[in-house]
Protein backbone atom coordinates (compact mmCIF):
# COMPACT_ATOMS: atom_id res chain seq x y z
CA UNK A 1 0.00 0.00 0.00
CA UNK A 2 1.37 3.39 -1.00
CA UNK A 3 1.57 6.24 1.49
CA UNK A 4 -0.95 8.40 -0.34
CA UNK A 5 -3.49 5.58 -0.46
CA UNK A 6 -3.03 5.15 3.28
CA UNK A 7 -3.68 8.86 3.81
CA UNK A 8 -6.74 8.73 1.58
CA UNK A 9 -8.14 5.79 3.56
CA UNK A 10 -7.50 7.65 6.81
CA UNK A 11 -9.40 10.58 5.32
CA UNK A 12 -12.37 8.34 4.47
CA UNK A 13 -12.16 6.91 8.01
CA UNK A 14 -12.29 10.40 9.52
CA UNK A 15 -15.27 11.23 7.30
CA UNK A 16 -17.21 8.17 8.44
CA UNK A 17 -16.25 8.59 12.09
CA UNK A 18 -17.37 12.20 12.17
CA UNK A 19 -20.61 11.36 10.36
CA UNK A 20 -21.30 8.99 13.26
CA UNK A 21 -20.31 11.72 15.73
CA UNK A 22 -22.54 14.27 14.05
CA UNK A 23 -25.55 11.99 14.38
CA UNK A 24 -25.12 10.61 17.88
CA UNK A 25 -23.94 13.65 19.85
CA UNK A 26 -26.58 16.12 20.93
CA UNK A 27 -24.30 18.91 22.16
CA UNK A 28 -23.98 21.43 19.34
CA UNK A 29 -20.27 22.04 19.89
CA UNK A 30 -19.63 18.35 19.29
CA UNK A 31 -21.74 18.46 16.15
CA UNK A 32 -19.81 21.48 14.87
CA UNK A 33 -16.50 19.79 15.68
CA UNK A 34 -17.69 16.66 13.89
CA UNK A 35 -18.39 18.69 10.76
CA UNK A 36 -14.93 20.25 10.97
CA UNK A 37 -13.27 16.86 11.27
CA UNK A 38 -15.37 15.63 8.38
CA UNK A 39 -14.03 18.53 6.32
CA UNK A 40 -10.47 17.71 7.34
CA UNK A 41 -11.02 14.11 6.28
CA UNK A 42 -12.03 15.27 2.82
CA UNK A 43 -9.06 17.64 2.62
CA UNK A 44 -6.80 14.73 3.51
CA UNK A 45 -8.33 12.69 0.68
CA UNK A 46 -7.83 15.56 -1.76
CA UNK A 47 -4.20 16.16 -0.80
CA UNK A 48 -3.38 12.45 -0.72
CA UNK A 49 -4.85 11.78 -4.14
CA UNK A 50 -3.04 14.85 -5.54
CA UNK A 51 0.26 13.21 -4.54
CA UNK A 52 -0.34 10.06 -6.56
CA UNK A 53 1.56 11.34 -9.58
CA UNK A 54 4.67 9.23 -9.12
CA UNK A 55 7.89 11.15 -9.79
CA UNK A 56 6.11 14.18 -11.24
CA UNK A 57 5.30 17.12 -8.95
CA UNK A 58 1.95 16.80 -7.17
CA UNK A 59 -1.18 18.10 -8.89
CA UNK A 60 -1.90 21.64 -7.67
CA UNK A 61 -5.63 21.80 -8.41
CA UNK A 62 -6.75 19.72 -5.38
CA UNK A 63 -4.51 21.89 -3.19
CA UNK A 64 -6.37 24.95 -4.44
CA UNK A 65 -9.63 23.19 -3.64
CA UNK A 66 -8.44 22.47 -0.11
CA UNK A 67 -7.55 26.14 0.44
CA UNK A 68 -11.01 27.18 -0.78
CA UNK A 69 -12.55 24.49 1.41
CA UNK A 70 -10.69 25.76 4.48
CA UNK A 71 -11.96 29.28 3.89
CA UNK A 72 -15.50 27.96 3.58
CA UNK A 73 -15.10 25.79 6.68
CA UNK A 74 -13.83 28.72 8.77
CA UNK A 75 -16.77 30.94 7.77
CA UNK A 76 -19.31 28.18 8.30
CA UNK A 77 -17.83 27.35 11.71
CA UNK A 78 -17.96 31.01 12.73
CA UNK A 79 -21.64 31.21 11.80
CA UNK A 80 -22.41 27.90 13.51
CA UNK A 81 -20.67 28.95 16.73
CA UNK A 82 -22.50 32.28 16.77
CA UNK A 83 -25.82 30.53 16.28
CA UNK A 84 -24.95 28.06 19.02
CA UNK A 85 -24.18 30.88 21.47
CA UNK A 86 -27.43 32.68 20.59
CA UNK A 87 -29.37 29.48 21.02
CA UNK A 88 -27.70 28.75 24.35
CA UNK A 89 -28.48 32.29 25.53
CA UNK A 90 -32.10 31.83 24.48
CA UNK A 91 -32.75 28.32 25.82
CA UNK A 92 -30.00 27.79 28.37
CA UNK A 93 -28.78 24.67 26.58
CA UNK A 94 -26.43 24.29 23.61
CA UNK A 95 -28.63 21.66 22.02
CA UNK A 96 -31.20 21.62 19.28
CA UNK A 97 -34.66 22.33 20.68
CA UNK A 98 -37.12 19.44 20.43
CA UNK A 99 -39.09 19.37 17.23
CA UNK A 100 -42.74 20.18 17.30
CA UNK A 101 -42.58 22.49 20.30
CA UNK A 102 -44.45 25.71 19.66
Amino acid at each position, binding site marked *: MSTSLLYALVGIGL*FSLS*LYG*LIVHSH*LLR*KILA*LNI*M*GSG*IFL*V*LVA*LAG*RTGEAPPDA*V*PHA*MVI*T*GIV*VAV*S*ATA*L*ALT*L*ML*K*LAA*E*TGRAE*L*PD*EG*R*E
Partner: protein
Amino acid sequence: MDVVFTEFPWGVMLILLPLVGGMICLLWPRRGRTLGLVTVFAVALSVVGVAWQMLDTGIYRHAVGGWGAPLGIDLYADGLSLLMLAASALVGLGVSVYSAAYFGREDGTRFWPLWLFLLAALNALFLSGDIFNVYVTFELMGLAAVALVALAGGQNALGGAMRYLLAALLGSLAYLLGIALLYHGFGTVDIALLADRVDASPVAWAALGLMGAGLLLKTAVFPLHFWLPPAHASAPAPVSALLSALVVKASFYILLRLWLEVFEPLVGSDAVSTLLGLLGAMAVLWGSVQALRQSRLKLLIAYSTVAQIGYLFLAFPLAAAAGATAWYAALYLALSHALAKAAMFLAAGNLLHFGGHDRIAGLDRVVQRLPLTAAAFALAGVSIMGLPPSGGFIGKWLMLEAALGQERWDLVAVMIAGGLLAAAYIFKVLGYAFTQADVTHESRAVPVSMEWAALLLALGAVLLGFLAVPVLSLVGIGEPFGVSGVGP
Protein backbone atom coordinates in the same frame (compact mmCIF):
# COMPACT_ATOMS: atom_id res chain seq x y z
CA MET B 1 -26.28 50.47 -29.46
CA ASP B 2 -27.48 47.10 -30.63
CA VAL B 3 -23.94 45.76 -30.62
CA VAL B 4 -23.41 47.05 -27.10
CA PHE B 5 -26.55 45.30 -25.98
CA THR B 6 -25.76 41.98 -27.60
CA GLU B 7 -22.05 41.95 -26.68
CA PHE B 8 -22.49 43.09 -23.08
CA PRO B 9 -21.53 40.42 -20.50
CA TRP B 10 -24.97 40.22 -18.88
CA GLY B 11 -24.15 36.92 -17.24
CA VAL B 12 -21.29 38.48 -15.28
CA MET B 13 -23.58 41.30 -14.19
CA LEU B 14 -25.97 38.73 -12.73
CA ILE B 15 -23.31 37.83 -10.17
CA LEU B 16 -21.48 41.13 -9.85
CA LEU B 17 -24.50 43.40 -9.31
CA PRO B 18 -25.97 41.67 -6.24
CA LEU B 19 -22.51 40.99 -4.80
CA VAL B 20 -21.46 44.64 -5.02
CA GLY B 21 -24.96 45.78 -4.08
CA GLY B 22 -24.85 43.62 -0.95
CA MET B 23 -21.51 45.04 0.10
CA ILE B 24 -22.70 48.62 -0.40
CA CYS B 25 -25.78 47.78 1.67
CA LEU B 26 -23.47 46.66 4.48
CA LEU B 27 -21.43 49.87 4.28
CA TRP B 28 -24.43 52.15 3.88
CA PRO B 29 -27.19 50.47 5.86
CA ARG B 30 -29.57 53.44 5.87
CA ARG B 31 -30.00 53.21 2.10
CA GLY B 32 -30.38 49.41 2.15
CA ARG B 33 -33.98 49.37 0.98
CA THR B 34 -33.43 51.65 -2.03
CA LEU B 35 -30.17 49.96 -2.98
CA GLY B 36 -31.73 46.54 -2.63
CA LEU B 37 -34.72 47.33 -4.83
CA VAL B 38 -32.56 48.98 -7.50
CA THR B 39 -30.14 46.04 -7.51
CA VAL B 40 -32.83 43.38 -7.81
CA PHE B 41 -34.47 45.34 -10.62
CA ALA B 42 -31.12 45.62 -12.42
CA VAL B 43 -30.58 41.87 -12.00
CA ALA B 44 -33.98 41.20 -13.56
CA LEU B 45 -33.02 43.39 -16.52
CA SER B 46 -29.74 41.48 -16.85
CA VAL B 47 -31.67 38.21 -17.04
CA VAL B 48 -33.59 39.70 -19.95
CA GLY B 49 -30.24 40.63 -21.47
CA VAL B 50 -28.91 37.08 -21.12
CA ALA B 51 -32.13 35.68 -22.58
CA TRP B 52 -31.83 38.09 -25.52
CA GLN B 53 -28.29 36.95 -26.22
CA MET B 54 -29.21 33.31 -25.91
CA LEU B 55 -32.08 33.62 -28.35
CA ASP B 56 -29.48 34.95 -30.75
CA THR B 57 -26.51 32.68 -30.13
CA GLY B 58 -27.80 29.66 -28.22
CA ILE B 59 -25.72 28.50 -25.26
CA TYR B 60 -24.13 31.29 -23.23
CA ARG B 61 -20.50 30.80 -22.29
CA HIS B 62 -18.17 33.30 -20.73
CA ALA B 63 -14.61 32.72 -19.55
CA VAL B 64 -14.19 34.91 -16.48
CA GLY B 65 -11.14 37.16 -16.80
CA GLY B 66 -10.26 35.55 -20.11
CA TRP B 67 -9.04 32.34 -18.41
CA GLY B 68 -10.88 29.44 -19.96
CA ALA B 69 -11.53 26.01 -18.46
CA PRO B 70 -9.92 23.86 -17.15
CA LEU B 71 -7.78 26.43 -15.30
CA GLY B 72 -10.18 29.38 -15.14
CA ILE B 73 -13.84 29.65 -14.30
CA ASP B 74 -16.36 29.33 -17.09
CA LEU B 75 -19.85 30.74 -16.81
CA TYR B 76 -22.26 28.56 -18.70
CA ALA B 77 -25.97 28.86 -19.35
CA ASP B 78 -28.42 26.88 -21.45
CA GLY B 79 -32.21 26.89 -21.42
CA LEU B 80 -32.32 25.06 -18.11
CA SER B 81 -30.12 27.66 -16.40
CA LEU B 82 -32.07 30.47 -18.02
CA LEU B 83 -35.33 29.16 -16.60
CA MET B 84 -33.89 29.05 -13.08
CA LEU B 85 -32.36 32.53 -13.47
CA ALA B 86 -35.70 33.89 -14.64
CA ALA B 87 -37.52 32.24 -11.74
CA SER B 88 -35.04 33.79 -9.27
CA ALA B 89 -35.45 37.22 -10.85
CA LEU B 90 -39.26 37.09 -10.82
CA VAL B 91 -39.58 35.74 -7.29
CA GLY B 92 -36.79 38.09 -6.20
CA LEU B 93 -38.65 41.13 -7.53
CA GLY B 94 -41.88 40.17 -5.79
CA VAL B 95 -40.19 39.37 -2.51
CA SER B 96 -38.12 42.57 -2.63
CA VAL B 97 -41.18 44.79 -3.12
CA TYR B 98 -42.80 42.94 -0.21
CA SER B 99 -39.74 43.19 2.01
CA ALA B 100 -39.44 46.94 1.46
CA ALA B 101 -42.64 47.30 3.47
CA TYR B 102 -42.22 44.22 5.70
CA PHE B 103 -38.90 44.97 7.37
CA GLY B 104 -38.48 48.00 9.59
CA ARG B 105 -35.32 50.05 9.56
CA GLU B 106 -33.52 47.88 12.12
CA ASP B 107 -34.26 44.48 10.54
CA GLY B 108 -33.89 45.89 7.05
CA THR B 109 -30.23 46.72 7.61
CA ARG B 110 -29.63 43.01 8.17
CA PHE B 111 -32.02 41.67 5.57
CA TRP B 112 -30.93 43.51 2.43
CA PRO B 113 -27.22 42.62 2.37
CA LEU B 114 -27.97 38.97 3.15
CA TRP B 115 -30.67 38.75 0.51
CA LEU B 116 -28.42 40.29 -2.13
CA PHE B 117 -25.62 37.85 -1.23
CA LEU B 118 -28.13 35.02 -1.50
CA LEU B 119 -29.18 36.26 -4.93
CA ALA B 120 -25.55 36.49 -6.05
CA ALA B 121 -24.96 32.92 -4.88
CA LEU B 122 -28.08 31.63 -6.62
CA ASN B 123 -27.20 33.31 -9.91
CA ALA B 124 -23.60 32.10 -9.69
CA LEU B 125 -24.87 28.58 -9.04
CA PHE B 126 -27.16 28.60 -12.06
CA LEU B 127 -24.29 29.91 -14.22
CA SER B 128 -21.66 27.48 -12.94
CA GLY B 129 -19.97 25.32 -15.50
CA ASP B 130 -17.93 23.21 -13.08
CA ILE B 131 -18.82 21.13 -10.07
CA PHE B 132 -16.33 22.74 -7.68
CA ASN B 133 -17.76 26.17 -8.37
CA VAL B 134 -21.12 24.70 -7.53
CA TYR B 135 -19.76 23.62 -4.13
CA VAL B 136 -18.56 27.16 -3.38
CA THR B 137 -21.86 28.71 -4.44
CA PHE B 138 -23.73 26.14 -2.35
CA GLU B 139 -21.86 27.29 0.70
CA LEU B 140 -22.38 30.99 -0.07
CA MET B 141 -26.06 30.28 -0.55
CA GLY B 142 -26.32 28.16 2.58
CA LEU B 143 -24.58 30.67 4.86
CA ALA B 144 -26.73 33.57 3.60
CA ALA B 145 -29.91 31.49 3.86
CA VAL B 146 -29.16 30.31 7.41
CA ALA B 147 -28.44 33.86 8.55
CA LEU B 148 -31.72 34.99 6.95
CA VAL B 149 -33.67 32.33 8.86
CA ALA B 150 -32.05 33.42 12.12
CA LEU B 151 -33.19 37.02 11.48
CA ALA B 152 -36.55 36.25 13.03
CA GLY B 153 -34.87 35.65 16.41
CA GLY B 154 -36.31 33.54 19.19
CA GLN B 155 -35.92 29.89 20.04
CA ASN B 156 -37.82 28.44 17.07
CA ALA B 157 -36.02 30.45 14.42
CA LEU B 158 -32.57 29.91 15.97
CA GLY B 159 -33.20 26.19 16.36
CA GLY B 160 -34.52 25.97 12.82
CA ALA B 161 -31.52 27.89 11.49
CA MET B 162 -29.07 25.67 13.39
CA ARG B 163 -30.71 22.48 12.13
CA TYR B 164 -30.70 23.90 8.62
CA LEU B 165 -27.01 24.86 8.86
CA LEU B 166 -25.96 21.39 10.05
CA ALA B 167 -27.97 19.70 7.29
CA ALA B 168 -26.67 22.08 4.62
CA LEU B 169 -23.03 21.62 5.70
CA LEU B 170 -23.35 17.84 5.82
CA GLY B 171 -24.87 17.90 2.34
CA SER B 172 -22.08 20.09 1.01
CA LEU B 173 -19.36 17.94 2.54
CA ALA B 174 -20.78 14.75 1.02
CA TYR B 175 -20.89 16.60 -2.29
CA LEU B 176 -17.26 17.76 -1.83
CA LEU B 177 -16.06 14.20 -1.22
CA GLY B 178 -17.84 13.26 -4.44
CA ILE B 179 -15.90 16.00 -6.24
CA ALA B 180 -12.64 14.65 -4.82
CA LEU B 181 -13.45 11.20 -6.20
CA LEU B 182 -14.53 12.50 -9.60
CA TYR B 183 -11.42 14.65 -9.92
CA HIS B 184 -9.24 11.73 -8.94
CA GLY B 185 -10.97 9.40 -11.37
CA PHE B 186 -11.39 11.66 -14.37
CA GLY B 187 -8.97 14.55 -13.87
CA THR B 188 -11.37 17.48 -14.26
CA VAL B 189 -14.19 19.31 -12.54
CA ASP B 190 -15.62 20.87 -15.69
CA ILE B 191 -19.13 19.53 -16.29
CA ALA B 192 -18.80 19.37 -20.07
CA LEU B 193 -15.44 17.55 -19.89
CA LEU B 194 -16.72 15.17 -17.21
CA ALA B 195 -19.69 14.36 -19.44
CA ASP B 196 -17.21 13.04 -22.01
CA ARG B 197 -14.97 11.16 -19.61
CA VAL B 198 -17.14 9.56 -16.93
CA ASP B 199 -17.76 5.85 -17.41
CA ALA B 200 -19.58 3.31 -15.29
CA SER B 201 -16.63 2.63 -12.99
CA PRO B 202 -16.73 2.12 -9.20
CA VAL B 203 -15.28 5.62 -8.67
CA ALA B 204 -18.15 7.15 -10.62
CA TRP B 205 -20.70 5.09 -8.70
CA ALA B 206 -19.23 6.16 -5.36
CA ALA B 207 -19.25 9.79 -6.49
CA LEU B 208 -22.87 9.47 -7.64
CA GLY B 209 -23.83 8.01 -4.27
CA LEU B 210 -22.09 10.73 -2.25
CA MET B 211 -23.15 13.67 -4.40
CA GLY B 212 -26.66 12.30 -4.79
CA ALA B 213 -27.08 11.84 -1.04
CA GLY B 214 -25.73 15.32 -0.34
CA LEU B 215 -28.02 16.92 -2.91
CA LEU B 216 -31.06 14.97 -1.75
CA LEU B 217 -30.40 16.20 1.77
CA LYS B 218 -30.14 19.77 0.53
CA THR B 219 -33.27 19.45 -1.59
CA ALA B 220 -35.14 18.06 1.46
CA VAL B 221 -36.45 14.96 -0.28
CA PHE B 222 -38.30 12.53 1.97
CA PRO B 223 -36.93 11.13 4.35
CA LEU B 224 -34.22 13.81 4.43
CA HIS B 225 -36.71 16.65 4.78
CA PHE B 226 -36.56 16.88 8.58
CA TRP B 227 -34.76 20.22 8.58
CA LEU B 228 -37.06 22.02 6.15
CA PRO B 229 -40.33 22.58 8.05
CA PRO B 230 -38.76 24.14 11.18
CA ALA B 231 -36.47 26.39 9.12
CA HIS B 232 -39.04 27.49 6.56
CA ALA B 233 -41.85 27.93 9.05
CA SER B 234 -39.93 29.97 11.61
CA ALA B 235 -38.15 32.36 9.23
CA PRO B 236 -39.58 35.82 8.45
CA ALA B 237 -42.24 35.52 5.71
CA PRO B 238 -40.19 36.93 2.79
CA VAL B 239 -37.30 34.66 3.76
CA SER B 240 -39.58 31.60 3.86
CA ALA B 241 -40.75 32.58 0.39
CA LEU B 242 -37.18 32.78 -0.93
CA LEU B 243 -36.13 29.50 0.69
CA SER B 244 -39.12 27.48 -0.47
CA ALA B 245 -39.30 29.03 -3.91
CA LEU B 246 -35.64 29.21 -4.88
CA VAL B 247 -33.09 27.72 -2.50
CA VAL B 248 -34.38 24.14 -2.50
CA LYS B 249 -34.70 24.31 -6.29
CA ALA B 250 -31.02 25.17 -6.61
CA SER B 251 -29.87 21.78 -5.35
CA PHE B 252 -32.54 20.09 -7.47
CA TYR B 253 -31.16 21.94 -10.49
CA ILE B 254 -27.63 20.68 -9.78
CA LEU B 255 -28.88 17.13 -9.27
CA LEU B 256 -30.67 17.35 -12.61
CA ARG B 257 -27.63 18.73 -14.38
CA LEU B 258 -25.30 16.07 -12.98
CA TRP B 259 -27.88 13.41 -13.82
CA LEU B 260 -28.27 14.58 -17.41
CA GLU B 261 -24.62 15.22 -18.15
CA VAL B 262 -22.00 13.87 -15.75
CA PHE B 263 -23.63 10.62 -14.64
CA GLU B 264 -25.31 9.94 -17.94
CA PRO B 265 -23.51 6.58 -18.46
CA LEU B 266 -24.61 5.39 -15.01
CA VAL B 267 -28.26 6.31 -15.03
CA GLY B 268 -29.10 3.83 -17.75
CA SER B 269 -29.69 1.37 -14.93
CA ASP B 270 -33.16 1.52 -13.47
CA ALA B 271 -32.25 1.05 -9.82
CA VAL B 272 -31.28 4.66 -9.09
CA SER B 273 -34.14 6.29 -10.97
CA THR B 274 -36.63 3.88 -9.38
CA LEU B 275 -35.29 4.79 -5.95
CA LEU B 276 -35.56 8.52 -6.68
CA GLY B 277 -39.10 8.05 -7.97
CA LEU B 278 -40.02 6.10 -4.84
CA LEU B 279 -38.63 8.82 -2.58
CA GLY B 280 -40.55 11.39 -4.61
CA ALA B 281 -43.80 9.43 -4.29
CA MET B 282 -43.30 9.03 -0.54
CA ALA B 283 -42.58 12.76 -0.28
CA VAL B 284 -45.78 13.64 -2.13
CA LEU B 285 -47.91 11.49 0.15
CA TRP B 286 -46.12 12.11 3.45
CA GLY B 287 -45.70 15.86 2.91
CA SER B 288 -49.35 16.30 1.91
CA VAL B 289 -50.67 14.30 4.85
CA GLN B 290 -48.43 16.20 7.26
CA ALA B 291 -49.54 19.50 5.72
CA LEU B 292 -53.15 18.52 6.32
CA ARG B 293 -52.40 17.79 9.98
CA GLN B 294 -50.78 21.15 10.80
CA SER B 295 -52.56 23.74 12.86
CA ARG B 296 -50.21 26.59 11.94
CA LEU B 297 -50.38 28.10 8.48
CA LYS B 298 -46.64 28.49 7.86
CA LEU B 299 -45.94 24.89 8.87
CA LEU B 300 -48.72 23.76 6.54
CA ILE B 301 -47.12 25.64 3.66
CA ALA B 302 -43.68 24.28 4.56
CA TYR B 303 -44.94 20.68 4.48
CA SER B 304 -46.65 21.45 1.20
CA THR B 305 -43.18 22.33 -0.12
CA VAL B 306 -41.95 18.88 0.95
CA ALA B 307 -44.81 17.36 -1.07
CA GLN B 308 -44.30 19.53 -4.13
CA ILE B 309 -40.58 18.73 -4.22
CA GLY B 310 -41.62 15.09 -4.35
CA TYR B 311 -43.36 15.71 -7.68
CA LEU B 312 -40.08 16.86 -9.21
CA PHE B 313 -38.53 13.49 -8.43
CA LEU B 314 -41.32 11.55 -10.11
CA ALA B 315 -39.73 12.68 -13.38
CA PHE B 316 -36.64 10.49 -12.86
CA PRO B 317 -38.25 7.06 -13.40
CA LEU B 318 -40.40 8.48 -16.20
CA ALA B 319 -37.57 10.14 -18.10
CA ALA B 320 -36.00 6.90 -19.32
CA ALA B 321 -38.90 6.32 -21.71
CA ALA B 322 -40.64 9.69 -21.87
CA GLY B 323 -37.39 11.62 -22.30
CA ALA B 324 -37.70 15.35 -22.45
CA THR B 325 -41.44 15.45 -21.68
CA ALA B 326 -40.85 14.28 -18.12
CA TRP B 327 -38.10 16.86 -17.61
CA TYR B 328 -40.21 19.64 -19.09
CA ALA B 329 -42.96 18.61 -16.70
CA ALA B 330 -40.64 18.72 -13.69
CA LEU B 331 -39.23 22.09 -14.70
CA TYR B 332 -42.66 23.56 -15.28
CA LEU B 333 -43.71 22.31 -11.87
CA ALA B 334 -40.56 23.79 -10.33
CA LEU B 335 -41.17 27.16 -11.97
CA SER B 336 -44.85 27.40 -11.10
CA HIS B 337 -44.19 26.11 -7.59
CA ALA B 338 -41.57 28.83 -7.14
CA LEU B 339 -44.09 31.55 -7.96
CA ALA B 340 -47.06 29.97 -6.19
CA LYS B 341 -45.18 29.03 -3.02
CA ALA B 342 -43.58 32.47 -2.76
CA ALA B 343 -47.06 33.99 -3.09
CA MET B 344 -48.39 31.63 -0.45
CA PHE B 345 -45.70 32.42 2.10
CA LEU B 346 -46.10 36.15 1.46
CA ALA B 347 -49.86 35.81 1.93
CA ALA B 348 -49.21 33.92 5.16
CA GLY B 349 -46.90 36.75 6.20
CA ASN B 350 -49.74 39.21 5.60
CA LEU B 351 -52.10 37.14 7.72
CA LEU B 352 -49.48 36.89 10.46
CA HIS B 353 -48.93 40.64 10.33
CA PHE B 354 -52.69 41.27 10.32
CA GLY B 355 -53.78 38.99 13.11
CA GLY B 356 -50.53 38.63 15.05
CA HIS B 357 -50.60 34.81 14.77
CA ASP B 358 -50.79 32.14 12.08
CA ARG B 359 -53.08 29.58 13.69
CA ILE B 360 -55.32 28.32 10.91
CA ALA B 361 -58.37 27.96 13.15
CA GLY B 362 -57.91 31.57 14.25
CA LEU B 363 -58.17 33.06 10.76
CA ASP B 364 -61.01 35.48 11.27
CA ARG B 365 -63.03 36.46 8.17
CA VAL B 366 -59.85 37.42 6.33
CA VAL B 367 -61.64 37.07 3.01
CA GLN B 368 -63.66 40.17 3.80
CA ARG B 369 -60.96 42.00 5.65
CA LEU B 370 -57.91 41.20 3.46
CA PRO B 371 -59.47 40.29 0.11
CA LEU B 372 -56.27 40.70 -1.92
CA THR B 373 -54.30 38.42 0.38
CA ALA B 374 -57.04 35.81 0.42
CA ALA B 375 -57.18 35.98 -3.38
CA ALA B 376 -53.41 35.55 -3.57
CA PHE B 377 -53.57 32.49 -1.34
CA ALA B 378 -56.45 30.99 -3.32
CA LEU B 379 -54.82 31.60 -6.72
CA ALA B 380 -51.51 30.18 -5.52
CA GLY B 381 -53.52 27.24 -4.21
CA VAL B 382 -55.02 26.69 -7.66
CA SER B 383 -51.52 26.24 -9.07
CA ILE B 384 -50.36 24.03 -6.18
CA MET B 385 -53.43 21.79 -6.57
CA GLY B 386 -52.80 21.65 -10.31
CA LEU B 387 -56.15 22.98 -11.45
CA PRO B 388 -56.43 24.57 -14.89
CA PRO B 389 -55.58 27.17 -16.01
CA SER B 390 -52.33 27.43 -14.06
CA GLY B 391 -48.64 26.62 -14.37
CA GLY B 392 -49.08 23.80 -11.89
CA PHE B 393 -51.74 22.28 -14.14
CA ILE B 394 -49.46 22.27 -17.20
CA GLY B 395 -46.64 20.66 -15.22
CA LYS B 396 -48.85 17.98 -13.68
CA TRP B 397 -50.59 17.35 -16.98
CA LEU B 398 -47.29 16.75 -18.79
CA MET B 399 -46.12 14.50 -15.96
CA LEU B 400 -49.39 12.59 -15.94
CA GLU B 401 -49.20 12.20 -19.70
CA ALA B 402 -45.70 10.71 -19.40
CA ALA B 403 -46.87 8.32 -16.68
CA LEU B 404 -50.00 7.26 -18.58
CA GLY B 405 -47.96 6.71 -21.73
CA GLN B 406 -45.80 4.18 -19.86
CA GLU B 407 -48.71 2.71 -17.93
CA ARG B 408 -47.10 3.62 -14.62
CA TRP B 409 -50.38 3.46 -12.72
CA ASP B 410 -48.62 3.64 -9.35
CA LEU B 411 -47.19 7.06 -10.20
CA VAL B 412 -50.51 8.18 -11.69
CA ALA B 413 -52.23 7.23 -8.43
CA VAL B 414 -49.64 9.13 -6.38
CA MET B 415 -50.06 12.25 -8.52
CA ILE B 416 -53.83 12.19 -8.24
CA ALA B 417 -53.75 11.47 -4.51
CA GLY B 418 -51.25 14.32 -4.03
CA GLY B 419 -53.55 16.69 -5.93
CA LEU B 420 -56.57 15.71 -3.83
CA LEU B 421 -54.64 16.08 -0.58
CA ALA B 422 -53.37 19.48 -1.74
CA ALA B 423 -56.96 20.52 -2.42
CA ALA B 424 -57.91 19.32 1.07
CA TYR B 425 -55.26 21.36 2.88
CA ILE B 426 -55.81 24.48 0.81
CA PHE B 427 -59.58 24.39 1.26
CA LYS B 428 -59.05 23.80 4.97
CA VAL B 429 -57.28 27.16 5.14
CA LEU B 430 -59.81 28.90 2.88
CA GLY B 431 -62.69 27.50 4.91
CA TYR B 432 -61.39 29.13 8.08
CA ALA B 433 -60.64 32.31 6.13
CA PHE B 434 -64.33 32.72 5.27
CA THR B 435 -65.73 32.14 8.72
CA GLN B 436 -65.55 33.96 12.00
CA ALA B 437 -63.04 32.66 14.53
CA ASP B 438 -63.96 31.74 18.10
CA VAL B 439 -61.35 34.06 19.51
CA THR B 440 -60.84 37.37 17.77
CA HIS B 441 -57.65 39.38 17.98
CA GLU B 442 -56.64 42.96 17.53
CA SER B 443 -55.76 43.46 13.90
CA ARG B 444 -53.05 45.58 12.30
CA ALA B 445 -53.28 47.18 8.87
CA VAL B 446 -51.27 45.47 6.13
CA PRO B 447 -49.35 47.74 3.73
CA VAL B 448 -50.81 47.72 0.21
CA SER B 449 -47.53 46.75 -1.46
CA MET B 450 -47.34 43.59 0.66
CA GLU B 451 -50.78 42.52 -0.51
CA TRP B 452 -50.07 43.28 -4.16
CA ALA B 453 -46.68 41.56 -4.14
CA ALA B 454 -48.33 38.32 -3.01
CA LEU B 455 -51.18 38.70 -5.48
CA LEU B 456 -48.94 39.44 -8.46
CA LEU B 457 -46.75 36.40 -7.79
CA ALA B 458 -49.87 34.22 -7.52
CA LEU B 459 -51.20 35.70 -10.76
CA GLY B 460 -47.84 34.91 -12.34
CA ALA B 461 -48.22 31.26 -11.33
CA VAL B 462 -51.68 31.16 -12.92
CA LEU B 463 -50.52 33.07 -16.00
CA LEU B 464 -47.85 30.42 -16.59
CA GLY B 465 -50.72 28.17 -17.58
CA PHE B 466 -51.10 30.21 -20.76
CA LEU B 467 -47.42 30.55 -21.57
CA ALA B 468 -46.37 26.92 -21.90
CA VAL B 469 -45.20 27.13 -25.52
CA PRO B 470 -42.92 30.20 -25.28
CA VAL B 471 -41.51 29.12 -21.89
CA LEU B 472 -40.74 25.59 -23.02
CA SER B 473 -39.13 26.86 -26.22
CA LEU B 474 -36.83 29.03 -24.07
CA VAL B 475 -35.95 25.99 -21.95
CA GLY B 476 -35.06 24.13 -25.14
CA ILE B 477 -32.16 26.50 -25.90
CA GLY B 478 -29.00 24.42 -26.09
CA GLU B 479 -31.04 21.23 -25.88
CA PRO B 480 -30.33 20.48 -22.20
CA PHE B 481 -32.25 17.21 -22.46
CA GLY B 482 -30.53 15.98 -25.56
CA VAL B 483 -33.77 15.81 -27.54
CA SER B 484 -35.24 18.80 -29.31
CA GLY B 485 -38.79 19.63 -30.18
CA VAL B 486 -40.51 17.39 -27.63
CA GLY B 487 -43.07 19.51 -25.88
CA PRO B 488 -46.77 19.91 -25.46
